[in-house]
């Protein structure tokens, strides 16, 4: 979103409290959403739950085209639309809800750095596996991505998306990587997260922050989504503290929210345990 709009939004945002009818939009859960979008969407949901902000999840086949930045998920709050975790965190902060106020400067720097680590390595690896691994692209990503559309359009849109992601991989130097190297990167990233987490319940001890929401969104989605190979999930499963971390967040923020609540079935796969 543009800067002027952003400044405007944060001014307005401060004035109004969080409404009851806030809505989060994402692609269709059963037949359309892909691993990376599902992970981002779950991260935002986890964040809002940690902030105790109610949100109704709405699945739309054209969510990607509704979003102001072209990326999902996005939230519709009052008369504002904000997409992606980073801006949503800023937006809630303007409304007086923040998870990272208790951190000191160094911790805040570390938190941002680890969030970029997840974006830079996990998210990119998910995109790589979805669109650059031919088996996954043919069997899962292209059919799912284009499922709401009929014949000529579905092919066009799916290949267009694949082309776009591949060009991006080229630009960031990932195009030359093999699948094995990507798994190795994921493993490296998980090891770093596991080391940073150590034996603490959350990344910055007792209180969850947006980093916890982001890591949970990605790890939980990878663990509960079936792909052509299990290798991605296996990489995470070798870090027991990360598994326990996912279980902890699932239990404290998702399970006790009763059925009937808007986001039941936040992940399409079976629950972790």
């Amino acid at each position, binding site marked *: 979103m543009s800067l002027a709009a952003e400044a405007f939004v944060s001014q307005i945002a401060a004035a109004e409290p969080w409404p009851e009818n806030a809505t989060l939009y994402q692609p269709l859960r059963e037949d359309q959403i892909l691993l990376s979008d599902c992970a981002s969407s779950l991260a935002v949901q986890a964040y809002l739950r940690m902030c105790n902000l109610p949100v109704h999840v709405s699945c739309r086949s054209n969510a990607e085209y509704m979003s102001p930045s072209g990326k999902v998920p996005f939230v519709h709050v009052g008369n504002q639309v904000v997409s992606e975790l980073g801006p949503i965190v800023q937006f809630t902060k303007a409304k007086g809800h923040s998870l990272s106020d208790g951190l000191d400067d160094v911790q805040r*720097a570390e938190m*941002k750095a680890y969030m*970029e680590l997840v*974006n*830079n390595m996990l998210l990119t690896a998910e995109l790589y596996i979805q669109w650059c691994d031919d088996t996954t692209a043919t069997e899962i990503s292209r059919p799912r991505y284009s499922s709401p559309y009929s014949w000529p359009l579905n092919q066009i849109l799916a290949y267009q998306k694949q082309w776009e992601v591949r060009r*991006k991989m080229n630009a*960031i130097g990932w195009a030359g990587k093999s699948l094995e190297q990507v798994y190795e990167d994921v493993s490296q990233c998980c090891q770093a997260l596991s*080391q940073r987490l150590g034996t603490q319940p959350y990344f910055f001890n007792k209180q969850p922050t947006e980093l916890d929401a982001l890591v949970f969104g990605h790890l939980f989605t990878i663990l509960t989504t079936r792909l052509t190979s299990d290798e991605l999930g296996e990489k995470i499963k070798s870090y027991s503290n990360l598994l326990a971390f996912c279980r902890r967040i699932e239990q404290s923020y998702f399970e006790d929210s009763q059925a009937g609540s808007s986001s039941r079935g936040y992940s399409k796969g079976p629950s972790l345990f």
Partner: protein
Amino acid sequence: MAVPSQMATSELYCWEGDWGLPSVDTECLIILAYAKFAGAPLKLHKIGNPWRSPTGSLPALKTSENGSLSRPSDIIIHLRKQKYNADFDLSAKEGADTLAFISLLEEKLMPALVYTRWIDPKNYVEVTRRWHAEHAPFPLNFFLPGSIQRQQLQRLRLVRGDEELTAGEEVEKELYRDAMECMNLISQRLGSNKFFFGDSPSSLDAFVFGYLVPILKMKLPNGRLQQHLKSLDNLSHFCSNILALYFPSEGRGISRKVSSQPEGGDADNEPGKRRKQLLSVLVALGAMLSYAFLTGIVAIQHVQQEALDHRSPGLRSLSSHGEEEDGEEEG
């Protein structure tokens, strides 16, 4: 045993330096700094023409066993495998922090750095394009800067996911805001330490140095990032400190450059001059030959045309007097 001598064969191709920097490019600076920190002996080729590198891009490390590597992370892994490891003393958690802060730099600072060097019209025209045109050999200097700029713009567009991204106030503000926030965070993380982890520099120090020192030293007309970096005392000290400790010759290079620029220019020209002479002779020769050839062809075609012109009335006459001639032949 014999290993060190093998290692010395690794050759690093990187962009030339200027403004008191060992190289003008972030990725090259990262490798150079890392190699210094780890004590890896590299044979350096500082060049202004990426076509002379074995991979066609810079930096590139030519190794005896793995072929040529061009991604900085691959090069660092290669050096690490050869026991040149600047991160040997880091704990696992510090290793994790390294990875995280490198990601932060790549996501938040890299786009702004690309923008400020290649997309900002004033900076590009007055500094970057001129520098690359001056440092590339003769025929390349006309299109190399432009082609690198198109590449960088494409990269920025893809990274930002905005196909129509062009130089503009709004984009600049957004990118610079991210970059300044990133610098603030790094500055907070560094605090009053000399290096990020302990008393000796590690790979994170190499990355931070590589990203920040060009901002600090390059003299760009639009220097908003530089102003901001200079206001963060610990970071600007960190950069000049590494520059002074690990690249002392470059510091001297500055004063020499300031005092005796023409001299340096002459020395630089000497090898290039002969190449230029040879090239201009070749081009002239080529032009003359092609002219001769072209006119030759025209002449030949002309002759053929004439031959045809001469023959066609003959043919006509043949057909009109066909019977006579047939008769004659038979006879």
